[in-house]
């Protein structure tokens, strides 16, 4: 309640974060797993003394560079931009708590960029041993970047002892840090295989193409042996409230979670199917299908993880609408409008009810609800509702409606919000 709220309607409800973040993680994980893929495939070329494999790695490096260094890096920056305007208070906590973590990650990113540019631009111009060393340096630092980011991202779901100590290390090495790191590492390796299929299916030589496609299929499938136990481990460490949210059949996240489970065997089988000898055009087309499946797979995982945090943005500390859990009683006592800095109306009066209702909607609802948009559309959800029904929902928030934070206002504010949502918002 410290910051102004960006008034966004159609693209509200977190849809911007969801789109940018999903696109980013799909490329960012490839940037890690793909690094190992590059160097191991290059070593394979030397081991098998096959110049054609080396040429393939060279071409794949260009593809890798263009995807990860431009789109991957910039969408990562995009996440930072979007969260700072949608949840400035939470972003500020993440920045101030982990500034040295972010700064360390930046150093790793510098090494990543330097090593990848050198790896690409010295291809065929550096002796094999040194070139492989450059490749390994890239992979090690890309994985170290994942290590740091994982500590901060997993903190939001399971801040653990940080809630009491506020210590960097307690927040970083939080309960879900380990399983999340393992899960992400294995998904990164699997994605390396999927991206590898995009380029390997374009190889002209039929025999080499089949060989490299099967090699990529192995990359796709093998990590699942450890990925599945990691996912199970992950599920064991998340808080009971989070488990309750994702296993609530009335919530969208439940269906998304089911989709994630269903997609696991589909992705594996589709991957194995790629290993069959097929014409080039079919292989090419199917590699894109696999890409879409993998995108949905990772997207559904991220959505479940994000939703599991609800009603918090930092679990047990700050609610999705940026109200600190510790401030809630005070807010409920004196009212949201009076407690928030960026409000014009400090109390609700008969004269300002509509305007105050709008301010309350922005402060309390807009972080998760769009207006006529794609996600949690408030107009659709409250269509045909009576004031009594809407107020009953406000009453149930944080309790029966566990994915929503408790209503933070007083009685007058409850009425003003109800009136605004059921009347003015629909005009």
């Amino acid at each position, binding site marked *: 309640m410290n910051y*102004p709220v960006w008034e966004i309607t159609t693209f509200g409800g977190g849809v911007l974060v969801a789109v940018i973040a999903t696109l980013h993680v799909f490329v960012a994980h490839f940037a890690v797993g793909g690094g190992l893929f590059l160097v191991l495939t290059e070593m394979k070329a*030397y081991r098998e003394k096959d110049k054609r494999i080396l040429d393939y790695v060279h071409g794949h490096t260009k593809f890798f560079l263009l995807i990860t260094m*431009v789109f991957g890096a910039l969408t990562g920056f995009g996440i930072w931009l979007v969260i700072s*305007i949608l949840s400035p208070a939470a972003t500020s906590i993440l920045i101030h708590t982990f*500034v040295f*973590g972010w700064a360390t990650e930046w150093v790793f990113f510098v090494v990543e960029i330097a090593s990848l540019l050198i790896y690409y631009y010295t291809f065929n111009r550096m002796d*094999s041993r040194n070139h492989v060393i450059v490749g390994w340096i890239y992979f090690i630092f890309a994985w170290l970047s994942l290590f740091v980011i994982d500590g901060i991202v997993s903190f939001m779901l399971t801040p653990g002892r940080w809630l009491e100590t506020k210590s960097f*290390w307690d927040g970083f090495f939080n309960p879900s840090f380990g399983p999340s790191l393992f899960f992400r590492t294995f998904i990164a390796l699997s994605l390396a295989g999927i991206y590898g299929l995009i380029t390997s299916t374009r190889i002209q030589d039929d025999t080499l193409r089949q060989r490299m496609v099967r090699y990529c299929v192995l990359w796709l499938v093998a990590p699942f042996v450890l990925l599945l136990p990691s996912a199970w481990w992950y599920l064991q460490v998340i808080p009971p409230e989070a488990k309750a949210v994702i296993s609530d059949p009335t919530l969208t996240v439940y269906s998304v979670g089911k989709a994630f489970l269903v997609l696991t065997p589909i992705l594996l089988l589709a991957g194995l199917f790629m290993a069959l000898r097929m014409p080039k055009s079919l292989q090419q087309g199917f590699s894109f299908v696999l890409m879409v499946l993998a995108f949905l797979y990772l997207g559904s995982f991220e959505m479940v993880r994000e939703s599991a945090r609800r009603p918090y943005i930092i679990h047990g500390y700050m609610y999705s609408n940026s109200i600190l859990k510790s401030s809630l009683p005070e807010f409920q006592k004196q009212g949201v409008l009076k407690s928030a800095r960026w409000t014009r109306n400090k109390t609700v009066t008969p004269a300002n009810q509509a305007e105050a209702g709008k301010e309350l909607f*922005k402060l309390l609802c807009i972080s998760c609800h769009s207006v006529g948009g794609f996600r949690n559309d408030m107009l659709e959800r409250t269509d045909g509702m009576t004031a009594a029904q809407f107020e009953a929902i406000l009453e149930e928030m944080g309790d029966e409606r566990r994915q929503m934070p408790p209503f933070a206002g007083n009685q007058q504010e409850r009425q003003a919000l109800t009136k605004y949502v059921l009347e003015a918002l629909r005009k």
Partner: protein
Amino acid sequence: MDPGRLIPYPDILPAPWGLFYILLVITFTLHLILANVMLGGGIVALASEWLKRRGEKDNGLNVHKEIAPKLPMTIALTVNLGIPPLLFLQILYGNFIYVSTVLMAVYWLSIFVLIILAYYGAYLYNLKYDRLGASRVWVMGISVLMLLAVGFFFTNSLLIMTDPKVWPSYFDRPGGTLIHFGEPTLIPRYLHFVISSVAVGGLAMGLLGWWRRRNGDLEGGERLSRGLRLYAGATLVQFLVGALYLGTLPNQVLARVAFEDTVAMAVFVISIATALSSILYSMSDKPWHTAVCAVATIFFMVLFRYAVQNAYLESYLSVSRPEVVMQLGPMGLFIAALIAGTAVVVYLLKLALRPGKEPQL
């Protein structure tokens, strides 16, 4: 409405203010130099393409082909070096910059999309250089336009951040579309950055010419001279734009940095001296002397810039100084990573600069 009431509480700092301030100044200087090289390089390449298209004589200005492979790398490094100053800015002035970015959310969010377009444009320009033919000027033109827009949005956000008086306009325009045209410094401040980019772009061109001449390329000398002349000309224009910028500063800010803050004034005088020296060196075809003076000028200008920013925020900062709770361990981790990372980058560069050798198959 009193804008002071709108300033959010700052969060706890994990190290003293001064340490982050030093890190901010150093990393912002480095970022600014690269951003100038990037935008200036793009502008020089575009101008070179344009002149060639108009059929003017080559005369050593045909530098766009030379810039083509370097521009994507420069964008990568500029983006990378843009991260730490933004991080340290959010640490020190988070309660100001977050407000500013919400007030201009639409433009702020567009920044990463614009950079992606500029970046891919630069790659397209380089990788399909011959195939693009006459379309090259459009590809580079669009990339430069995107980068110019990004620069403008950053200028706007930093200006809104330092001027809480404009913040109450949020209540009338909460959709995140604020461009602070009400502040007369906006345009001169932005032009100051653009002209500086042209100057540094010229300097980079001069240094490339020097490198070519050193390797026995006869065209190198001509490029060196032209690049340095561009630097000198743009820097002279910069004096006019800079004067305009100073002239449009609010009176109390100008009075603070010009008469009350002697350190700020000293820094400003030094920066003028180094800028003049750089012009003299550039006119004598001394690229490295020019470069050293130009870097010093940018560094002192950055220091002066923050003095101006603090003068703007003086009354607001004094009431919202954050608490400090030291994080020694994590700070040690960062320092260790920085030392190790630097060593690895030096090692990588050594490997890269070794004479080329075919891979052994």
